[in-house]
């Protein structure tokens, strides 16, 4: 990869973070137009983006971010007052930034015309009250670095009793040679005296970013005295001035509603621990290698070598492999917040467009999922949320008529339950009209009248996921566009997940998505069917048992058993596998092994020949040449190097 490519990748990654930060902060600014902290954050983000764009030579982007930076500056010193017009302008600015970055990424140029917008910005900036131009001299009262509430929390948690938080401003002599090298010496010195919470420029950027006005600002937590720190830093050659003052942390305050559920992992918090960006392809390779390691470890175990040394090494190997696996799994995990973060803005815009008032609450953003799953979830989640705004929440007048609050609520939450991650989208809107769904299903001949009669309410709702069932007469531009509910279901199924709906007329709708925690490596139960070994993923199994022939009852001509007052239908696994043998042979056995599996919303008793053992298996995909083999979801390699198939029990009923 050429140097330029590396810088480009870094630029895109950083730009994305800044754009997200800008969006979040403008949203906050909309609620709190006077919040100095937010304004400063915005200023700094625009400033940094400007610097990056200028370094990369992206002139249009530089000009845009420069103007936005100017605007933020004027807002900061009161020359511009924040109102809806300004907020909209700011949002538009961010959108333009996003567009230009996308243009650069896709086409390698900045061919986007934003002249009209730049003029708009310029107008706002120059119309601002003309204050006395301030001298651009170094005044001791100049702003230091501000701390966000997350940073303050961070400090509170990590600092010791006797530590003090200092704001340090260092000024380099004008004639300093190698200013950035001096700056790195300052950082070195400071980190020996305590720990650096925040700095301008940032420690990692020291080699790339120019020093603004020969100044370095650091927020340091240290047990040393002000005098000692001052002396240490002054001692460095070419330092003109060092100003230190103690920062008193504000009293702990109640987080406001927007902060509830926000995690420490928000992308705009400066983390004290260092992080690295990892190319996801490398992670995939790593996972594959660990998969191979696991397979070979299992095969080694199966060899059963009779040697003391061997017996000693094996559990060690086992432990190390498992630790390695868990660690890499954790590296691949990312908080869903990364994907959730774009939703507040999206919902705000949509609600505005449709004239609806919506309170959007997110919970559990810190819940972690495998990176690749998060990527795929983006589209389905977007679709569900847009539906909630478009079809779910009613207009304020309509809501009031129904006796509801004029402001509707949409809840997006994520949490872990056992070995699954659950994501829920809930709205208190008009609910899904089941009759309409059924009508549409009948019209499109997705189901027959008889089948409808057999269905319960829940099953009828699930019809929504069949292709072609869209109950809104016009396919509105907002959520139409060919991304139907059936695509949502398919995407989730491809991730090995499931989606359920609950809905009540006029009360609201809830979508519940469950996803397995890991994709590639799973716990499974190995069973024997007709002399072949099959694997059944543990998360699909409720329990296993052995029954006697006498326990089998008959209901409507099918075999069932009664387990703790539940009636569970039995299925011969040979039948599901379409084996060319007589089914029902199990009736001749004394003891019949059964695996109770979850198939959709039901439980089924799957009859197998033998229950073997539980094992961690590495899921291998079945060759692309074999498309969609019914009831088989993949393959795995077992102890003796042979392939065992993995049963997919979801549709086995």
């Amino acid at each position, binding site marked *: 990869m050429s140097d330029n490519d590396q810088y480009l990748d870094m630029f895109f990654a950083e730009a994305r973070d800044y754009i997200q930060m800008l969006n979040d902060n403008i949203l906050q600014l909309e609620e709190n137009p006077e919040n100095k902290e937010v304004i400063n954050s915005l200023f700094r983000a625009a400033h940094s983006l400007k610097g990056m764009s200028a370094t990369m030579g992206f002139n249009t982007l530089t000009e845009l971010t420069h103007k936005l930076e100017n605007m933020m500056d004027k807002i900061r010193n009161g020359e511009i007052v924040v109102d809806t017009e300004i907020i909209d302008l700011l949002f538009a600015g961010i959108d333009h930034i996003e567009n230009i970055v996308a243009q650069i990424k896709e086409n390698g140029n900045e061919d986007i015309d934003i002249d009209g917008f730049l003029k708009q910005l310029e107008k706002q900036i120059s119309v601002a009250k003309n204050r006395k131009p301030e001298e651009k001299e170094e005044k001791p009262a100049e702003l230091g670095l501000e701390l966000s509430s997350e940073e303050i929390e961070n400090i509170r948690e990590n600092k010791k009793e006797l530590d003090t938080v200092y704001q340090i401003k260092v000024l380099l002599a004008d004639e300093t040679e190698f200013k950035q090298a001096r700056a790195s010496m300052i950082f070195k010195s400071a980190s020996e005296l305590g720990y650096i919470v925040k700095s301008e420029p940032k420690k990692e950027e020291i080699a790339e970013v120019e020093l603004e006005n020969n100044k370095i600002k650091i927020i340091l937590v240290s047990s040393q005295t002000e005098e000692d720190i001052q002396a240490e830093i002054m001692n460095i050659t070419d330092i003109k001035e060092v100003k230190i003052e103690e920062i008193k942390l504000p009293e702990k305050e109640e987080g406001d509603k927007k902060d509830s559920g926000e995690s420490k992992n928000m992308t705009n918090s400066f983390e004290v621990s260092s992080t690295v960006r990892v190319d996801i392809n490398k992670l995939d390779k790593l996972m594959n290698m660990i998969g*191979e390691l696991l*397979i070979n470890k299992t095969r080694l175990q199966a060899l059963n070598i009779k040697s003391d040394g061997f017996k000693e090494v094996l559990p060690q190997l086992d432990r190390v492999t498992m630790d390695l696996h868990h660690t890499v799994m954790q590296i691949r995990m990312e908080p869903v917040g990364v994907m959730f973060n774009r939703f507040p803005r999206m919902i705000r815009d949509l609600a505005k467009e449709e004239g609806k008032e919506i309170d959007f609450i997110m919970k559990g953003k810190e819940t972690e999922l495998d990176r690749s799953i998060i990527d795929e979830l983006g589209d389905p989640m977007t679709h569900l949320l847009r539906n909630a705004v478009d079809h779910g929440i009613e207009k304020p007048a309509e809501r009031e008529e129904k006796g509801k609050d004029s402001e509707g609520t949409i809840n997006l939450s994520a949490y872990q339950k056992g070995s699954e991650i659950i994501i829920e989208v809930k709205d208190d809107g008009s609910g899904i009209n089941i009759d309409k769904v059924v009508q549409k299903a009948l019209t499109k001949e997705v189901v027959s009248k008889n089948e409808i009669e057999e269905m319960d309410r829940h099953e009828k709702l699930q019809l929504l996921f069949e292709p072609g069932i869209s109950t809104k007469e016009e396919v509105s531009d907002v959520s139409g566009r060919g991304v139907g509910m059936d695509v949502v279901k398919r995407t989730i199924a491809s991730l090995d997940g499931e989606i359920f709906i609950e809905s009540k007329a006029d009360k609201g709708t809830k979508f519940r998505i469950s996803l397995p925690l890991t994709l590639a490596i799973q716990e499974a139960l190995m069973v024997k069917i*007709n002399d*072949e070994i099959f694997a059944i993923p543990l998360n699909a199994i409720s329990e296993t048992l052995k029954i006697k022939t006498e326990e089998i009852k008959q209901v409507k001509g099918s075999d069932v058993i009664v387990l703790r007052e539940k009636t569970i239908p039995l299925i011969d696994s040979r039948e599901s*596998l*379409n*084996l*060319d043998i007589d089914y029902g042979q199990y009736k001749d056995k004394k003891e019949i092994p059964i695996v109770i599996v979850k198939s959709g919303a039901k439980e089924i008793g799957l009859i197998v020949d033998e229950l073997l053992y539980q094992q961690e298996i590495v899921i*291998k*995909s*079945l*060759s*692309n*040449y*074999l498309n969609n*083999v*019914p*009831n*088989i979801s993949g*393959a795995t*390699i077992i102890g003796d*190097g*042979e*392939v*065992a*198939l993995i049963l997919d029990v979801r549709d086995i009923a």
Partner: protein
Amino acid sequence: MYNKDKKEKINNVNDKQYLTFKIANENYGLELTQAKEIIKPPKVTNVPNTEESIQGVINLRGQVIPVIDMITKLGLNEKEKEGYKNEKRIVVINIKEILIGLYVDNVKEVVKLSDNEIEDVQETKKGIRQEYIKGVSTTSDSLIIIIDLDNLLFSNKQKKKGA
């Protein structure tokens, strides 16, 4: 130009190498560039609900690849399956970025053939479908039926079977 008696042939730009193997007492060939490796057949795991000709899957250094039973695929007489027990091999081919194993009775040699040594056939023995065959070569000691792998593996699939 070729001369049946001479072993040497004039190297032609259109010469290609072909891997030859035996299926049910007949010689077949495929372009060497498509063949990746030849292995002794490990245990083949049956995959239910797939075509008759798909024998199952095997583990090829960690990757799961399907194995095609060539006799069934070509529609040949089943009885010919016997014999050559120790010589049976799986020829692993790479086609359209997919690895597939072909189960054959034995693998012979690599021969060089030029395009004009391969004749079209109007009708073939044993009723093999014409689109499966690229042509027939009558040079060397016996007939070599050159297989069109693309058509063989990717035209309409046949009826499904159980295990």
